[in-house]
């Protein structure tokens, strides 16, 4: 959404902050004996994380962004400003929870474990679905539907789209810009905290990893077309599958696909997993060279 009219590079660290608060709340819940049973306790702690992140973002907007908005600063200046905000948030997170890895998933580990699947299907290879993976897919779908419903069906959501479309006409129509901006930040807080927590549940929480998420996030947004919600989703899938596709060890797959005896000796991995970020970067450069507007043209800044 081009409501705020700038590219916010602090997304990764916003996710880190939201996740950090969620983790602290999770530990709090666990210490008083409340757990989510089979589902991770962190999901119960999500509202706390979202509320704290929303408060942080609204305070940041009041202290930093509002000044530049009133100056009608260009989006390039706001981009630089958001880099500053990113460093402050980054420091805040490291200061509070430290730079180390934190694991905070609990509940049952697997929805489908490899051994159970083998026994059930009689196949040679197992299929494992981690609980966190299932929850991630489910939550992503629910959040996506809720977001589109909000933007396309509610009065407030429509007023946000109107504001993004034509700011002056939105003002003439009586849409309050400060309210639209505030709601946008709250949405950012909710989405970033949910995304960060799900990511942390599936992997683990480490502030630096979240900072590094910035590149794939941008690659996804630009592939899809800046300012287009559908584009962001499609772009996310493209970037993710490219990253995994190029760094995956295809040995076993090839062994089954190719005729007997032709199976490769090596891992058949095109790139080391350390080069994952290079894939995002390559996609980014290619898209900017070939189709800078992205797949779905949005209202870019």
């Amino acid at each position, binding site marked *: 959404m081009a409501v705020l009219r700038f590219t916010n590079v602090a997304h990764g660290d916003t996710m880190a902050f939201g996740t950090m608060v969620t983790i602290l709340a999770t530990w709090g819940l666990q210490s008083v004996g409340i757990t989510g049973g089979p589902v991770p306790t962190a999901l119960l702690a999500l509202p706390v994380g979202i509320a704290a992140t929303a408060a942080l973002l609204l305070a940041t907007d009041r202290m930093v962004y509002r000044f530049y908005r009133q100056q009608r600063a260009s989006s390039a200046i706001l981009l630089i400003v958001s880099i500053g905000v990113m460093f402050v948030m980054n420091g805040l997170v490291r200061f509070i929870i430290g730079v180390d890895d934190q694991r905070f998933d609990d509940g049952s580990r697997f929805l489908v474990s490899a051994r159970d699947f083998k026994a059930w299907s009689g196949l040679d290879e197992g299929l494992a679905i981690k609980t966190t993976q299932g929850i991630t897919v489910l939550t992503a779908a629910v959040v996506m539907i809720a977001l589109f419903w909000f933007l396309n069906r509610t009065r407030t959501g429509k007023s946000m*789209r109107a504001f993004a479309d034509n700011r002056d*006409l*939105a*003002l003439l*129509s*009586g849409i309050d810009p400060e309210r639209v901006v505030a709601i946008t930040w709250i949405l950012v807080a909710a989405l970033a905290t949910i995304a960060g927590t799900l990511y942390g549940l599936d992997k683990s929480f480490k502030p630096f990893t979240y900072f590094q998420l910035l590149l794939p996030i941008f690659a996804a947004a630009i592939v899809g077309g800046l300012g287009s919600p559908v584009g962001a989703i499609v772009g996310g899938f493209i970037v993710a599958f490219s990253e995994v596709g190029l760094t995956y060890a295809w040995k076993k797959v090839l062994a089954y696909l190719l005729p007997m005896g032709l199976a490769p000796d090596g891992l058949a991995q095109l790139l080391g997993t350390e080069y994952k970020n290079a894939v995002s970067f390559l996609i980014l450069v290619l898209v900017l060279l070939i189709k800078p507007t992205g797949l779905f043209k949005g*209202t870019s800044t």
Partner: protein
Amino acid sequence: MIVGPNGAGKSTAMKAVFGMLPLREGRVTLGGRDITALTPQARVAAGMGFVPQTHNIFPSMTVEENLEMGGFLRRDDIRPTIEQVYELFPILRDKRHQAAGELSGGQRQQVAVGRALMTKPQLLMLDEPTAGVSPIVMDELFDRIIEVARTGISILMVEQNARQALEIADTGFVLVQGANRFTDTGAALLADPHVRQSFLGG
């Protein structure tokens, strides 16, 4: 109806009336109420509708959403007003679910006028609604605007095509170099030899 040559201050006058420019002297009243101190947004709430010359629609939103946003300030049911707009501009009913930015120039102007009508204004201000549309579409737009006027809404309009504009005007103002040179009924202005000679090409 405000007419006059290029650079005479027609659009500036319109913006001043709507509160987008500060007044150096004088007052703005609407139905007897002094609204000089109000912001443009507050003037909309007070009963003024304004259609800017350009950027007057929400291009990525549907026609119906454009109308809904026009009625954003209203807390009551806006469905009947949307129906009235569709009756006034039947083409918009057919295109209600299409993005307004995909419509033709004349249709976009209809969306823009419809959006401004959603607040049920006493006064509708149009800044050159026919700029950049073909003569045929222009005639149709004029017809529609006359129909809007017949529903009891006063219309203040800036227009480049002085002759056609004065033909339908109750009152015409001819601006020259930032000052009001002639004020009269449209028909009287059209008959005035000075006006004819200077601005209507004889």
